[in-house]
């Protein structure tokens, strides 16, 4: 069975590091999507900690609706994940 296609939108530091606005990956969970991001963009290697969790200097939002911290969260085809710098405020 093929994995869902997920679009990762990049903002702030992730965009500056990756030098692209978005990435398309195939992943069934948030953790798999992050692993794909790192595989495609080695400059984003610090996005995930050694334990696979999102590093504290980043935030992840599912379609702009909720922020997600649980990397086991399943993803649906067409989901968009927003990868942001944390400390979004001034």
């Amino acid at each position: 069975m093929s994995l869902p296609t997920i679009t990762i939108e990049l903002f702030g530091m992730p965009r500056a590091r990756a030098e692209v606005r978005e990435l398309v990956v195939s992943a069934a969970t948030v953790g798999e999507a992050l692993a794909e991001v790192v595989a495609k963009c080695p400059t984003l290697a610090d996005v995930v900690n050694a334990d696979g969790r999102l590093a504290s200097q980043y935030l992840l939002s599912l379609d702009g609706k909720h922020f997600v911290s649980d990397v086991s969260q399943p993803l649906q085809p067409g989901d968009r994940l927003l990868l942001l710098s944390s400390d979004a405020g001034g």
Partner: protein
Amino acid sequence: MGGYHGRYLRIDLNSGTASYVTLSESVLRRFLGGVGLGTWLLHHESPPCVDPLAREAALVFCFSPLVGTPLTTSAKFAVVAKSPLTFRLNDALSSSHFALAGKRSGADALVIVGACTAPSVLVIEDGAIRIESASELWGLDSDETTKQLGERFGQEFHSAVIGPAGEHLVRYATISHANRHAGRGGLGAVMGSKRLKAVLVAGTQRVPVADPARVVAASRDLSQRSFGPATAKYRELGTVSNLLTFNRLHALPTRNFQQGQFEQAENLSGESLNATRRVARESCASCTIGCEHIYSSSEGNVRLEYESLFALGPLCGIGDRDVVLRAARLCDRLGLDTISVGATVAFAMECSERGLLEADGLRFGDGEALLALLPRISRREDSLSDLLAEGTRRAAARIGGDAPDFAPHVKGLELPGYEPRTLQTMALGFAVGSRGADHNRSGAYELDFSAKTDRFHGSPEAAALAVDTEDRAALIDSMILCKFLRGVFTDFFAESADLLRIVTGWDITAEELRTTARRIVTAKKLYNVREGWSNSEDTLPRRFLSEGLSTGVATEATLTVERLQTMIDAYYSARGWNADGQVSESQIGELQLTDL
């Protein structure tokens, strides 16, 4: 006791005299410095219910125990006064050599009362003061004033100055030092009301720290951590990178908070500014982060932050990046708070479009009109600019009709660049803030940008978390360290206690500092209560509580009066205050606030 002189310098401009006043160890330990000590001083030095622009009103410059140490980002000072915009306590922070030289002048704070009879500069050198004429400086902008003062007094003096906006008592005028500003709440107008064009400081009086070797080691460690990932955003992109993120999340206030997204956001984004306009990166004195990104404009180079970008851009419907950069540069020179002036012009644009205000056809998106208005406002040149120099609350009251419903302020202070309907924990932070709608004294937005809360549905459960962000801000603003350093701490209260212990020699603990932070927040509240606060002020403009906001990701975001009230009730409860938001006598005793 290391880190302190143990006294403040009280300057009476009426008589042209100054004297030291002892600060007891008890006061310093309970209020630390910065906004904490400034609040205590304001309680004691500003008469109850004083007009903020009256000669009796006090203007406090407050340093901190960390100023003068090698700890990164510690060269900061607070300016505290009763705000002419809100008539409530106002505290604003600024940085750099004024803090270092001010503390070396021999005091932990400067308290200025009275007023000069003619435009003057106040010169403070090692505790001795003199007042000199500023007649040739009056009318000059902040840059030119600073330049001329440098030529007149020499490099060892550092100055805090006002521009034309302060002179003309614009209610959101700033105090400038080295192109940085004590920006919010109209402190420049308080200085202008005292006919003070500038305060200059110099001195040779250094204070020892309790454990110099450990302070040096802690400074090295903190500097090292400041180069890490927690501050990368500030170093590499600056806060302007917030714009596209906020836009994507429908949290970017646009056209006076009528929308949460701006169709020209890409053009104004930090990313495009950094690619096309960035010319330098600078830092405050004693800072290893260096978050100040400098951009070129046809008006000269300008430091730009997200708050100026949002207020002079999307909030006014303006997408031309040169216009925004020029407007920010003008505000710096004229001494105008970019948030308040942007919000006031945006509000006027909406009033004009609705036919409520005769304003030469002012419309959203009219960049040239914005650029023309800024100098006029700073000098109150005509009836329109005079009205706008009063800020949105007073302007709305005069315009009448339903204008007060969409005047974007809390307690008179214009909202910063966070849309309350899509960031509903921040909405609570705005509503209850002691200085009004404020993103620096409450970090509640951090909860909206997390999995801990639902940003579209504010909940009472978030109130305790919002309290915690206020307490952290109170502590960091009183020690003082830069908030951009906050991400490097793993246990903020414990590490802060470590720093204060080696500087002061006090056996201070994380638990004591938690109480200190609560004490400082409560002391600000008690000042406001003394000046007439009631819980009817802890709210948001009607627009946010009656109009939904299109979000694209769900049905429209709405924030009802009832939901906000539930959060406010939970906030009062989490603070230990009464149901009407008043502080009980027993809590005043517990927090050792009986001397206020």
